[in-house]
């Protein structure tokens, strides 16, 4: 894993400014799609921290996406919090839940952890519909939210403001993520992924790190979910089925496991490929989607970022010769 080298910062800033400029280029619905891509990117970064960098599988991150979305919705609807405060609150809630879930779940490895997390994903819609929680969750009907207006009377439509706001949150989350992954904690996480026994022998407190990683990963995905709730203006149990968890996993692998930039490619994939598949075949769109998935894995088992890196390495080697 290589976090962006310090020489790359000017390019990153340029990229962020270019994306920000899109606020005035894209129209209404496209802005919404752009915002959703950013939400998914944050969510995928969260999943990547767990799966790519710490080597733990999760088939249930859709549950944390849902949790973040509902936490934000409840904070705004019942707690009266403004939208910009509800996002960090959602993140915090997911951090706690993620850590608590991680603590017992960490005893399970590989497939068993996959099942446990999948159980979480399957249970979430059912829990959200549960009669006794209806007062808070709105039951089957969910909660309706209002899109915020641009602050300080800025000349931006709500869609435009939300896109910029999402971009700011994305940048902040990615900075946090980058710092985390290049720190000592990040190295400890990767050490656990690569050789848990050796890591423990070197004094890494594996159980604590694994639970903490789970919590942080959940927090990131929860923030993505919270943002998405505001963008969609609506949360309901059936928006967060197990297909979301599967999509997130697919996204993180297609983008590139163990890479930071993979989150963006994965988010683009999740957002646009299903409708692309539908445009190719009205009758069996998911069959096309499946073929696309398999083709991509054949062509680039390391995801998009993996492919870009191997190509770059090959060019570099050719240039050296």
């Amino acid at each position, binding site marked *: 894993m290589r976090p962006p080298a310090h020489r790359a910062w000017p390019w990153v800033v340029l990229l962020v400014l270019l994306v920000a400029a899109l606020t005035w280029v894209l129209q209404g619905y496209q802005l919404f799609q752009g915002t959703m891509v950013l939400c998914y990117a944050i969510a995928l970064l969260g999943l990547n921290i767990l*799966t790519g960098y710490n080597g733990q*599988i999760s088939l249930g991150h859709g549950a944390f996406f849902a949790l973040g979305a509902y936490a934000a919705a409840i904070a705004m609807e019942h707690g009266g919090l403004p939208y910009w405060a509800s996002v960090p609150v959602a993140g915090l809630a997911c951090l706690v839940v993620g850590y608590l879930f991680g603590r*017992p*779940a960490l*005893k*399970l*490895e590989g*497939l*068993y952890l996959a*099942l*446990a997390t*999948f*159980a979480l994903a*399957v*249970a979430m819609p*059912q*829990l959200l*519909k*549960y009669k006794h929680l209806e007062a808070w969750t709105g039951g089957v009907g969910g909660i309706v939210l209002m899109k915020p207006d641009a602050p300080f009377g800025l000349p931006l439509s709500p869609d435009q403001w939300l896109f910029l706001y999402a971009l700011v949150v994305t940048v902040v989350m990615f900075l946090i993520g980058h710092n985390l992954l290049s720190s000592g904690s990040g190295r400890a996480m990767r050490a656990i992924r690569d050789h848990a*026994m050796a890591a423990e022998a070197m004094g890494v407190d594996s159980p604590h790190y694994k639970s903490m990683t789970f919590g942080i990963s959940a927090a990131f995905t929860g923030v993505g979910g919270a943002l998405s709730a505001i963008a969609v203006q609506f949360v309901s149990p059936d928006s967060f089925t197990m297909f979301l968890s*599967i999509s997130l*996993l*697919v996204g*993180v*692998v*297609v983008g590139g*496991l163990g890479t930071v930039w993979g989150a963006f490619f994965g988010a683009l994939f999740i957002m646009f490929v299903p409708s692309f598949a539908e445009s190719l075949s009205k*009758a*069996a*769109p*998911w*069959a096309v*989607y*499946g*073929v*696309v*998935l*398999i083709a991509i*894995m*054949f062509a680039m*088992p*390391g*995801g998009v970022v993996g492919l870009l890196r191997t190509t770059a390495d090959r060019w570099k080697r050719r240039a050296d010769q």
Partner: protein
Amino acid sequence: MNEFLHQLLAGLATGGIYASVALALVMIYQATHHINFAQGEMAMFSTFIAWTLIQAGFPYWGAFAITVVLSFVVAAAIEFAVIRPMHNAPVLSVVVVFIGLLVIFHSLAGFLFGYTIKPFPSPFPADAWYGGSLMSAHEVGAIVVALGMVSLLFMFLRLTPLGLAMRAAAQNAASSRLVGINVGRMLMLGWGLAGAIGAVAGMMVAPVVFLDPNMMTGVLLYAFAGALIGGIDNPIGAVLGGFIVGVLENLLGTYVVGTELKLSVALVLIIAVLIVKPSGLLGKTIVTRV
């Protein structure tokens, strides 16, 4: 009391289906150390093939036999053409390929055979001597079939040289080649067997829940849970796990939480068991000297 017994036995009947699919999952897992997430959809597709043959006039057992053989061949072909090329790829990339297969089979089934629910015949006549008030003839038959398959498979894997070779190829492909085992052929054999077992499971469940593309989606999850609770490396464990999950699901649904939450609660209980016994009830913890 009679009601309880009835629910228990009904749970065993569905458990038999879960056990069969769990068996298929363990088959492929033992051979390749991968979980075939597309197993349910492949089984469903096989059942549709059988249905088509029966509609075309084939007698039940003829259609059954052809379907089983066809499923064996197609599964082996999938291993060769789709899974084998990925053998050097990271695990999660292979998982995504499985997801791709799942989605393709599901969508193709809908496209080719439609989404309307279809009845599927049972080979066990409703008035047979072994049926009764507590369990229908089909339920008894399905359980017997499941148990029969696992016995055959167990004997094959543990008592024959070919079965031993399959297990060896799964554990250590390099050393297997050194003793003359063609690892590729073992993989195809494992997949073929799983495909055949899945087809049988599909044909056993279709008469009960009726045939449609969504038939096996829930079953796969229960089968997966059953395989894990029994021990993913153990065919007997998988079958035991499948029965346990079937009974658990039914009893929970009837007496404790009702149908909406029974899936979540069942899974929570399973995870609780796994936390206490991480390799499953019958799973072998493989000791490695560091």
